[in-house]
């Protein structure tokens, strides 16, 4: 209970700061949109080909924007040594982890809410009825991405060239999430329903649960000034 109270307190603070400065959200949003344009120019996307490539392209966009967000995740705490102030306090570090994960998750979901419909509009896709299902799968994948991403973002906090190092260690570990979300989306696009994507969905949920638990347990050691 205490854990959740503290998580909520920190999350509220992060959201308030983000609402004031809007740094992360705006950059992530514009970067996501920009990527859609880059995709169009690089692949010359005609509707028949787009249908096949949709899951991969969408996830590529989320992966890159998400990494951008992760690089910024602890920057706010570094200003004015606020991270020290938090570590000095009786805060449960598991709550700190949960709050940062939730914060990054909220940012990414906000970006996804805009980018997915925009993808459909920009590439003239007709299959609007599958969008809610796709969004659901994307959200599950985003949970995994944020959990592992927050953990590794904290691990690389003190490293030189951390913006470069982070994706380097993050992407290989993220392969179960990437593969399962993309396969799920493919199955949905093929059948218009979840159907045979179920094993992938289970893997995805398993991944989310395992790393959420590991994160809460291990975060006490991860974060030090």
């Amino acid at each position: 209970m205490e854990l959740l109270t503290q998580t909520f307190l920190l999350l509220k603070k992060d959201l308030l700061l983000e609402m004031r400065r809007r740094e992360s959200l705006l950059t992530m949003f514009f970067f996501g949109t920009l990527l859609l344009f880059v995709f169009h120019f690089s692949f010359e996307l005609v509707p028949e080909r787009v249908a096949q490539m949709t899951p991969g392209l969408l996830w590529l966009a989320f992966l890159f924007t998400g990494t951008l967000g992760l690089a910024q995740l602890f920057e706010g705490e570094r200003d004015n040594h606020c991270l020290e102030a938090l570590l000095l306090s009786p805060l449960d570090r598991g709550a700190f982890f949960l709050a940062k994960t939730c914060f990054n998750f909220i940012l990414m979901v906000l970006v996804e809410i805009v980018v997915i419909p925009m993808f459909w509009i920009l590439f003239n896709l007709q299959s609007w009825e599958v969008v809610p299902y796709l969004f659901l799968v994307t959200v599950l994948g985003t949970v995994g991405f944020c959990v592992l991403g927050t953990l590794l973002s904290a691990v690389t906090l003190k490293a030189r060239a951390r913006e470069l190092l982070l994706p380097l260690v993050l992407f290989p570990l993220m392969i179960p999430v990437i593969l399962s979300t993309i396969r799920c989306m493919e199955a949905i696009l093929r059948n218009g329903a979840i159907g045979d994507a179920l094993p992938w969905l289970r893997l995805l949920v398993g991944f989310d649960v395992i790393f959420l638990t590991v994160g809460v347990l291990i975060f006490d050691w991860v974060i030090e000034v």
Partner: protein
Amino acid sequence: MHLTVHQLAKAYGLLWALRDFSFDLPPGEVVALLGPNGAGKTTLLKLLAGLIPPTMGEIVLNGLQFERGTPIQRAAIGFLAPGEHLYENLTVRENLHFFTSLYKKREAIKQIDTALGEVGLKHRSEEYVVALSSGMKCRLSIAKWKLLEPQLLLVDEPYGVLDGSGIDLLERFLKAESRKGSVVIMASHHVARLLNLCTRAVILHQGRLIFDEPRQQPWDSFARAFGEFLPHETSWSS
């Protein structure tokens, strides 16, 4: 708070920042932590705050080992670094609200206004911290620790940014803390002021403790030790 330190040491890479440091402080002690730049003052404060792990040695708070710090132990330690540890894009009141909630001080939330009044920030409580001058930020830090009631208060060079009334405020606050039985350790280069306030003086030089004595009048041994190791700073005698 009774604070005991045994043979504390911290090395950064191949350099000792602090070596073989021991002292024992009963409740109510106000310690002046002196020494030239690079003597290890800030390292000592950060070690005591649990912000960095020691290379060797141990810290004992009220008879309990302080290793990674339980939440209860951490709640008992305050670190007053002027201008730091505040969210610049939150308002003055939001900052205090956030930290008091984090420390679970429910009654303190009601006293935020009183505390702001005492440090002279009441009329600026809705401003963002980024808009405050460094002296005002320091006053806000004082208000913050007043509300959080630490039993061990570490203070890192507060004098540089405070004006006359601010200094009064700080010293009154520290004395009140000491009367309540808290231990205060303050690092500063304003030797004269610090000596006026303290009950005990400690001098660090190149990471080693070279002087540790309770304050007395007259204090020849301090003058000798101080003159020997910090010959450039004579302002204290004024």
